[in-house]
């Protein structure tokens, strides 16, 4: 028992029973439902969820909002897309290029801007995203501009199922890695920086260095998801990197709950399918969406993650009361 506990601690595989149940249900889902429209919606939502988690790794822990996050996903997607189409490389090789390139650009941007006050660091990331968008639109020779770059698919089948399992695998692995970092000493430094920058400075934390580490990892995750995105949807347009996309990731991440990592999975899998269901009311659903985001910000800044934790802790107190 002790050994297995240690093993769990070492690998960072510390899912709660509820989370494990949900994961198993998701793994079984295609076996019951099969392939189709709903699976596609779940994949789209999961893409945003993993991005939301990567985004949260920066915003929830070091309090840096990467307002150009979609661009880092776009960089990964275009890197892999261009390498596979121009050089004929296999997507299974270019995945590393996508991660390295997004992470690398994140590293240099961080080096340059993470000493700025938080909101200006966010602005600089945003400007970078606008530039990436402009490049994707205008550098037609490389990206084929708005008409879209056609990219080979990862699996040679029209089915969504292998993609679905790959994405779940990416999500779980990313979560385990990020969670492991958060629970290490580096994670403590992140938390110190996020909660009180001045105090972190005073106690000798080299904040810029840790911010850059964090930012680079977060951007690398975006590159990984971008790679998946490119080879799943097969067509890449500059819209991938648009500010609208960043706002969507950000909304999911914040409605899910800051500093929880898993919150964006809950938010993405509830809110995005809901938006899909509400399609008949058209514009109204986005008005509701904007209201929801504003309301969460004002009245429940902890988001869904805190709501669930809250319910769970109440449930536990009820249980202890009953055992008396």
């Amino acid at each position, binding site marked *: 028992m002790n050994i297995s506990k240690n093993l769990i601690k070492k690998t960072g595989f510390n899912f709660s029973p509820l989370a494990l149940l949900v994961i198993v249900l998701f793994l079984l889902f295609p076996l019951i439902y099969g392939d189709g429209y709903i699976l596609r919606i779940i994949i789209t939502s999961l893409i945003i969820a993993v991005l939301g988690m990567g985004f949260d790794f920066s*915003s929830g822990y070091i*309090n840096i*909002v990467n307002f150009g996050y979609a661009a880092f996903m776009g960089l990964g997607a275009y890197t892999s897309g261009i390498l596979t189409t121009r050089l004929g490389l296999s997507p299974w090789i270019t995945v590393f290029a996508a991660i390295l390139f997004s992470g690398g650009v994140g590293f240099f941007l961080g080096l*340059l*801007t993470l*000493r*700025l*006050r*938080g*909101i*200006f660091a*966010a*602005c*600089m990331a*945003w*400007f*970078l995203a*606008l*530039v990436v*968008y*402009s*490049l994707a*639109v*205008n550098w037609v020779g490389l990206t084929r501009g708005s008409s879209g770059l056609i990219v080979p698919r990862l699996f040679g089948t029209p089915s969504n199922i292998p993609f679905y399992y790959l994405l779940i695998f990416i999500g779980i692995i990313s979560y385990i890695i990020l969670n492991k970092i958060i629970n290490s000493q580096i994670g403590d430094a992140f938390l110190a920086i996020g909660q*009180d*920058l001045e105090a972190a400075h005073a106690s000798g934390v080299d904040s810029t260095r840790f911010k850059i580490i964090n930012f680079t990892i977060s951007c690398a995750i975006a590159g990984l998801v971008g790679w998946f995105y490119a080879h799943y949807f097969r067509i890449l347009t500059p819209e991938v990197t648009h*500010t609208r996309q960043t*706002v969507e990731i*950000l*909304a999911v991440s*914040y409605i899910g709950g800051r500093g929880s990592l898993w919150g964006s999975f809950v938010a993405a899998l509830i809110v995005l399918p809901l938006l899909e269901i509400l399609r008949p009311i*058209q*514009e*109204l659903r*986005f*008005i509701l*969406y*904007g*209201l*929801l*985001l*504003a309301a969460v*910000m*004002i*009245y429940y*800044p902890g988001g869904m993650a805190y709501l669930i934790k809250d319910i769970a802790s109440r449930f536990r107190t009820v249980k202890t009361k009953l055992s008396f």
Partner: protein
Amino acid sequence: MEVLINLAIIGILRGSTYILMALGLGMIFGVMNIPNFAHGELYMLGAYFGYLGYVVLGLNPIFSIIFAFFAAFIVGGLLEIIFFRQLRKRSIAGKWIMNCFLLTLGISILIQHIVQYIFGYRYLGISAFWPGRTLILGIIRVSNDRLMGFIIAVVAVILFQLFLKFTKTGRAIQAVSNDEVGAEIVGVNLKIIYTLTFAIGAGLAAIAGSSLLAINAAHPLMGLSPLFKSWIVIILVGMGSIGPIFFGGLIVGILETVSYSYFGAGWQNVISLVVIILLLIFKPEGIFGKKGVRGIWEQ
């Protein structure tokens, strides 16, 4: 040489929009510590209100711009009362700026889609407020609307400056910007000042949006570009006083025109960013980095 002067004139005329936008943005950030990413939406609302005033209500051009100012003034005030006042009651110190940033994104989604819901996804424009063209300095002909847009912006900036300097309310706004606690001690009602600041900022953005209605037709997504350009102005010059913002706006306008004419459409963002990055590396305190101008660095 003549080409350069042409570009400079066009750039300066274009820059007036960014001056008005950046002024409101800088004031809202300076007084309330809100990085307003819904500022572009207020510009967009200005364009719609200008259209309503001119086409639907049949006002003359100047009055439709004034109508847009007051309509956006009211919307801005309401936004402050409905959203930011509520957030201020609940926000934890130290998290305020980031919370506000996200709240403004929510507001931005909200305004965009309410407008889309009411007016649909089409361009609402007019041919011209003031038809015709004028010869400037005997060199270049520009449309009257462009020229009047610039004049209106300059007048608005001067009026705004007079308001800040010579009215009690204006001085109170400046006082809050300098020292919130001190201002409250001497009896400034912070709540009213906050609401007013946001409302005036919204109004200034609406003047920019409505006066250029003939050039940029009203559209739900039109706010993004003026928003990020006014942020570029703020990053270039900091957000202290009016002078730097004025020059910053002109610089961004000229930069945009020059890169547009030498590199072609679509590349101006790339050039602007390169300039900002070079500036951050070689002159990190900003162009006008000096005392009294709030910089962008942590310490």
